[in-house]
């Protein structure tokens, strides 16, 4: 191929792509009529909910389909060259030099029995780099992905590195050949927000430096928004809208995009007492469903008769975009599915649950692991307290201590409505057990797949209320109504229900007794965006109706901002900051909270605070302040020697840091409070 053609062709051109999977005996359409172009040097996003076919597009481009998949139509051109009819040799050549891919779960992407250095070196070997230069090149490229100690990393095996580090290595391999196209398929899903932010920054830097085109695939609108110039929205194997990112998200021309955006709480959305979240009704059609007319009609609030008869084309719309909607100009007039008025609720200052002086030490291989240390937390009647922090910070352990599943260390005091609570669930009274319940992250794991909905909820009702058969049955049906499910679902098994319905069943079960506190452990993170909003609404409504308190564990700060009254930030088994939600989000922040907040993909890069390194092992916490090994605001020796206490620096706002609040305010560039801080103390 000559330099001439290379200049004139876009990096990637997908035309009329259609693809099928064989499921059982039948071939089912998985992608249809996919059309998009990635220009040279451009970052192009592909966004959609699970099951919409995002990854299938990537695999079709890499020409690496599973054995039950086949392309039935269309062309995929990489720099003008059709990849659908290459010889194996040409294909390999293409993969070596022109196109690379990074995907989810770096932990499994590298061969466990080959050293990192060797695996990266392969790429250079394939490129034909002479043997003596290769090691240097490997070091260079690892340097480029900001691996601090490349020599050491090269000698490691994959299991010896963290997820973030592995993803850097995978990215290094992908960019080594300076490919024309780099495909990133959910590269940060499953990584902590802080690590995600680092990886995303890295990808952006590299793209600017190398000038590759990027195809970025993600379910996260925020990530796509941050990373991409243009974006395509995928639904049920069809493109719904394609256009510049700004235009697509700020001025959406398809009802699906509008709906998705409304489902997501953002800093601009009001809080839960001000507004509900809008939702998208209905479900994704099953793979291969034959639907005449618009595939989105079932769920679309703008649907007209014609929509059910004629499938819309990708119609050019203003702002250099296309939209697969007959009534694209009315997309933003989409009526709300749920009324905007938020349920009214009462809150009181009365303490429901207090845990004081809590610690939990596990013993692992004979060595102690300090999972929780010196926790003091109060939850009031009818309020929502959010618990945030990276994985490994002890959030779930705290939840399990409250539930009585893990017995805390001696000295821990848990009190429910002022009465002491036994450390073990087995020693609590029936009332106490019913009073603290839990909604789990993953309904597939939380619901017994062999039991009917009636049995799942009914059993909990029976044990937690101990009433007659009739009352139990009535209560079960009542609970179904409360979680907005019809009684036709009573006999269903979990697998016959969608993810959202399953989570509703799990919520109904948690409300079987009359709970005073429900612990929600990432209740929406296994769900798609459109379902997530409905579940959050439901939780808010139930709280208003039942006056229940929530301990809401989440990594999604936008959800936390929307739903929480107070926020507790955890790091390495300690509370670092506790305060009302508006106060915690407004600042001044504890340095760790500051870093967490700035890791959010909603923010622009220049304001980011980088967190160095990884969360230390709980078996060997750092001396002094546990955050000192990573703290960007560390003030000196005192941080390394003296552990700061959790102190009430403002009424109702607690922090665990040596820096005085006024100084934090200055450091974080916020206007000083009423009293001007004395700069002399710095």
């Amino acid at each position, binding site marked *: 191929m000559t330099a001439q053609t290379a200049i004139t062709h876009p990096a990637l051109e997908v035309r009329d792509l259609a693809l099928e999977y064989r499921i059982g005996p039948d071939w089912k359409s998985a992608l249809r009529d996919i059309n998009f172009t990635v220009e040279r040097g451009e970052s192009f996003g592909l966004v959609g909910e699970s099951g919409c076919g995002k990854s299938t597009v990537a695999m079709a481009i*890499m020409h*690496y389909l599973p054995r039950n998949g086949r392309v039935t139509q269309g062309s995929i051109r990489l720099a003008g060259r059709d990849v659908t009819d290459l010889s*194996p040799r040409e294909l*390999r*050549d*293409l*993969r*070596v*030099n022109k196109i*690379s*891919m990074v*995907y989810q*779960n770096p932990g*499994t*992407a*590298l*061969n*466990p*029995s*080959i050293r990192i250095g060797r695996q990266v070196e*392969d*790429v250079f070997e*394939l490129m034909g780099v002479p043997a003596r230069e290769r090691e240097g090149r490997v070091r260079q490229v690892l340097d480029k992905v900001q691996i601090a100690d490349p020599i050491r990393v090269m000698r*490691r*095996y994959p*299991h*010896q*590195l963290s997820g973030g580090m592995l993803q850097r290595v*995978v990215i290094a*391999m992908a960019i080594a050949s300076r490919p024309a196209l780099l495909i990133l398929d959910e590269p940060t899903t499953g990584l902590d927000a802080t690590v995600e932010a680092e990886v995303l920054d890295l990808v952006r830097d590299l793209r600017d430096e190398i000038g590759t085109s990027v195809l970025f695939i993600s379910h996260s609108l925020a990530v796509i928004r941050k990373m991409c110039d243009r974006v395509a929205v995928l639904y049920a194997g069809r493109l719904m809208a394609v256009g510049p990112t700004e235009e697509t998200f700020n001025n959406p021309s398809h009802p699906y995009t509008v709906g998705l955006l409304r489902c997501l709480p953002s800093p601009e959305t009001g809080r839960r007492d001000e507004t509900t979240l809008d939702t998208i009704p209905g479900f994704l059609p099953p793979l291969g469903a034959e639907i005449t007319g618009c595939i989105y009609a079932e769920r679309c609030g703008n649907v007209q008769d014609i929509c059910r008869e004629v499938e819309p084309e990708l119609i050019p719309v203003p702002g250099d975009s296309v939209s697969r909607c007959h009534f694209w100009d009315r997309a933003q007039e989409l009526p709300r599915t749920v009324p905007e008025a938020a349920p009214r609720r009462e809150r009181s200052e009365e303490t429901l649950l207090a845990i004081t002086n809590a610690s939990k030490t596990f013993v692992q291989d004979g060595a102690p692991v300090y999972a929780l240390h010196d926790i003091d937390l109060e939850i009031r009647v009818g309020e929502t307290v959010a618990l945030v922090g990276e994985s490994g910070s002890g959030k779930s352990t705290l939840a399990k201590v409250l539930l009585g599943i893990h017995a805390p260390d001696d000295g821990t005091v848990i009190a429910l409505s002022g009465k002491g609570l036994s450390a073990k669930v087995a020693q609590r009274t029936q009332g106490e057990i019913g009073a603290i319940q839990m909604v789990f992250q993953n309904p597939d794991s939380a619901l017994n797949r062999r039991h009917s909905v009636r049995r799942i909820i009914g059993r909990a009702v029976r044990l937690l209320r101990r009433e007659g058969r009739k009352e139990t049955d009535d209560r079960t049906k009542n609970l179904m109504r409360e979680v907005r499910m019809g009684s036709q679902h009573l006999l269903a098994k979990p697998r016959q229900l969608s993810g959202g319905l399953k989570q509703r069943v799990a919520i109904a079960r948690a409300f079987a007794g009359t709970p005073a506190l429900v612990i929600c452990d990432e209740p929406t993170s296994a769900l798609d965006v459109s379902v997530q909003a409905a579940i959050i609404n439901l939780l808010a409504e139930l709280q208003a109706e039942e006056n229940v308190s929530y301990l809401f564990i989440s990594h999604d700060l936008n959800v936390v901002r929307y739903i929480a009254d107070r926020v507790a930030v955890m790091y390495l088994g300690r509370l670092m900051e506790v305060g009302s939600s508006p106060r915690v989000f407004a600042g001044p922040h504890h340095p760790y909270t500051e870093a967490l907040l700035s890791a959010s993909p909603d923010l622009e890069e220049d304001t980011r605070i980088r967190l160095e390194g990884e969360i230390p092992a709980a078996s060997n916490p750092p001396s002094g302040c546990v955050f000192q090994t990573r703290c960007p605001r560390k003030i000196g020796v005192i941080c390394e020697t003296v552990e700061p206490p959790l102190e009430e620096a403002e009424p109702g706002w607690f922090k665990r840091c040596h820096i005085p609040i006024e100084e934090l305010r200055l450091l974080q560039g916020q206007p000083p409070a009423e009293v001007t801080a004395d700069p002399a103390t710095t």
Partner: protein
Amino acid sequence: MMGRFVLRRFGLALITLALLSVLVFIGTQLLPGDVGRRVLGPFATQESVDALNARLGTDRPPLVQYTDWIGGAVTGDLGDSITFARPVTELVGRALINSAKLAALAFVIVVPLSIWGGILAALRRGRLIDRLITVGGLSATVIPEFVSGIVLILIFAVTLGWLPGTASAPRGSGFFTQMRHLLLPAICLTLVLFGYIARITRAGVIEAMEADYTRTAILKGLPRRVVIRREVLRNALLPTIAVVASQMGYLIGGLVVVEVLFSYQGIGQLLYSAAQNADFPLLAGGVLVVGAMFQGSMLLADLAYSWLNPRIRLAGSG
């Protein structure tokens, strides 16, 4: 880390052996009730039974018997055989050498063949050759050795007359004559082992081929040959090692039947005649040795596995 692993694994093997010795002891000294009576039969006089019990030491309390027996076992003294009136250690040792020859020949045939077959089946998954290897291998595995042995004898020894129908070569025959005699029994064992090892290999290869890291390698542009050799086989054959070693256990069990069928003087035949003659000291000693050998081979396999697997070798040194 590795040192601790070895120690732990070794300790476990010892505990298992100790347990085994108790089981064997129960089976050979306690279950039979009056050992002397069982050996001599219902028509022997009470005096001769008592005399035998006294000679064997089976009139003492069980705990004393056990400590005595196990104490001897540790120092290599397993008592004397009743029928052969010779030290058990000597008889077992001689038989083991014979069995080792047969087992070695079987292993030499079956290991490369079945691993190759398993890889081939995995690479041609779903095609005819795959079905042939898996279904055919499975069928061969489950047919008892005496059935396949009979058919082999019928064909190769009786009808065609190509190979001898007994495994024991005449005294003083050369290496090749010995091997010729061992060929039919070895094929018998091969038939049983082939399907099993091939299936494990196939499963391992398929798993490795579907692993993310293999996808990485392919998408890197590595040639298929290299991908299979380096990415797939390297990770897939590790579990196969453990399986091959665990087949030692089967092999010894299979040897009983095969050696009886082909009248070969190995450990299987020895145990068989010990059982038939109610020769309890020989039976107990033989079974204990067999168990020890099995544990030993499992231990070696585990060590080899962990040595080759960096995830275990380097555990904790991250």
